[in-house]
């Protein structure tokens, strides 16, 4: 019985999992979740591509690392695998929860975890009537949001199932708010309604915190988080060109993150999450912003060689060699004085603002190879593989 890596395409994270499995001596099998027919009938189950029969691979699998990149396919994959009696990491219950920012936040809030003020209006911006007429709801929805969040404070509209900062829009005027509501059409990443949040005065960074649990062991919050930092945008997603640093976490934050993991883990024996958290820093800033921006510019220059290495096509032909070069480039970046200064500023700010933390998202299938691993020192593939192994061993 083995662990299977289920995926749509082998991207860097999946290649990293394969490489790590080799280093740990763990046999991995592979289940492509793309052009494959999963059939159920009176004759049982089969899984076949045009050229290969994966049925026996799946029969021989006990635990599945679900790395389908599409949220919707990931959800279907977890249900299929669980119905076939496989253990999944993460489980379908967790995938369903993390699929939606609203569902995640509702559960965290219910259990007393601090979150940004969040408002959900179930109706869509535009309703289509029979005969082709439309009812426009954006003014009513804007009024409902403004009842809850002062516009001058900033209202952030979010696609409920979006990632990488997609469809996250800030409004500070009534016109912007209505336009952003109209923009949030029902889609695969925003199936229904509109989610809005207060704008958290998070200064220039947020944190990505990794929490995990292996079956039979205590849950763990990794002691160092990845900080995503920059003034490029009110969103701090690395996808949007922000820089990454590490930040050691105070014990109180580690404890709170573990609690988040346990809540979202919903009693599953093994799980892993990348939690996104920020601090309502307000004016509690520990350095002058002009000085900080200068250091960020210097760090940005140093980060260019990391970005260049990330794009290098060597990763397509020799992943291990590309990875060694990427690690070296990141170490060079990390050893610059600008990196060290910003790292100190973030860690001091985290200490000063611990009480102002809010958790705003939980990622069930985190990307980690290029940023989180290099910034924090945690290869997330290790807890992923060990978590799957623990489900088999017990």
């Amino acid at each position, binding site marked *: 019985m083995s662990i299977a890596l289920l995926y749509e395409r082998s991207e860097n994270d999946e290649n990293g999992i394969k490489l790590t499995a080799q280093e740990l001596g763990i046999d991995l099998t*592979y289940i*492509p979740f*793309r*052009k*494959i027919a999963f059939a159920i009938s009176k004759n049982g189950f089969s899984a076949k591509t045009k050229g*290969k029969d994966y049925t026996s691979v799946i029969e021989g699998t006990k635990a599945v690392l679900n790395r389908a990149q599409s*949220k919707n396919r990931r959800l279907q994959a977890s249900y299929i695998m669980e119905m076939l009696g496989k253990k999944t990491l993460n489980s379908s219950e967790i995938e369903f929860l993390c699929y939606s920012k609203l569902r995640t936040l509702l559960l965290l809030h219910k259990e007393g975890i601090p979150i940004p003020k969040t408002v959900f209006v179930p109706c869509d911006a535009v309703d289509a009537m029979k005969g082709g007429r439309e009812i426009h709801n954006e003014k009513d929805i804007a009024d409902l949001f403004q009842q809850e969040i002062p516009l001058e404070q900033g209202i952030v509209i979010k696609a409920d199932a979006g*990632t*990488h900062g997609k469809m996250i829009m800030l409004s500070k005027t009534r016109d912007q708010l209505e336009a952003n509501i109209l923009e949030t059409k029902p889609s695969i990443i925003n199936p229904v309604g509109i989610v809005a949040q207060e704008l958290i005065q998070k200064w220039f960074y947020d944190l990505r915190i990794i929490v995990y649990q292996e079956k039979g062991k205590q849950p763990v919050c990794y002691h160092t988080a990845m900080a995503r930092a920059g003034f490029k945008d009110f969103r701090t997603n690395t996808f949007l060109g922000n820089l990454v640093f590490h930040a050691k976490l105070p014990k109180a934050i580690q404890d709170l993150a573990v609690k988040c993991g346990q809540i979202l883990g919903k009693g599953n024996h093994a799980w892993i999450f990348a939690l996104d958290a920020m601090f309502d820093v307000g004016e509690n800033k520990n350095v002058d912003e002009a000085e900080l921006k200068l250091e960020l510019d210097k760090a940005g220059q140093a980060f260019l060689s990391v970005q260049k290495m990330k794009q290098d096509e060597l990763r397509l032909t020799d992943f291990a060699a590309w990875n060694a070069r990427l690690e070296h480039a990141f170490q060079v970046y990390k050893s610059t004085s600008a990196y060290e200064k910003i790292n100190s500023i973030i860690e001091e700010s985290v200490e000063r603002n611990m009480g102002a933390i809010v958790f705003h998202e939980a990622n069930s299938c985190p*990307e980690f190879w290029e940023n989180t691993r290099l910034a924090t020192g945690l290869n997330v593939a290790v807890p992923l593989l060990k978590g799957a192994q623990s489900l088999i061993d017990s």
Partner: protein
Amino acid sequence: MIKPINSNQANITAKCPDCEAELDVPADTEKGEILSCPGCGLELEVKAVKGGCIDLQELTIEGEDWGE
């Protein structure tokens, strides 16, 4: 460049860079064509065909709901 493991006038046999399944690629395949690996379904773009060698590269596809 994916090295052919066998080539004759009609076909070039190459390996999928991901699942290592064998692909029979017609020798008259042209640059820019999109092939699908029979083993894993991965879409591969023909970047070059030269002297019995074929350069296949995984196509970058990203759906709207692709993410963490």
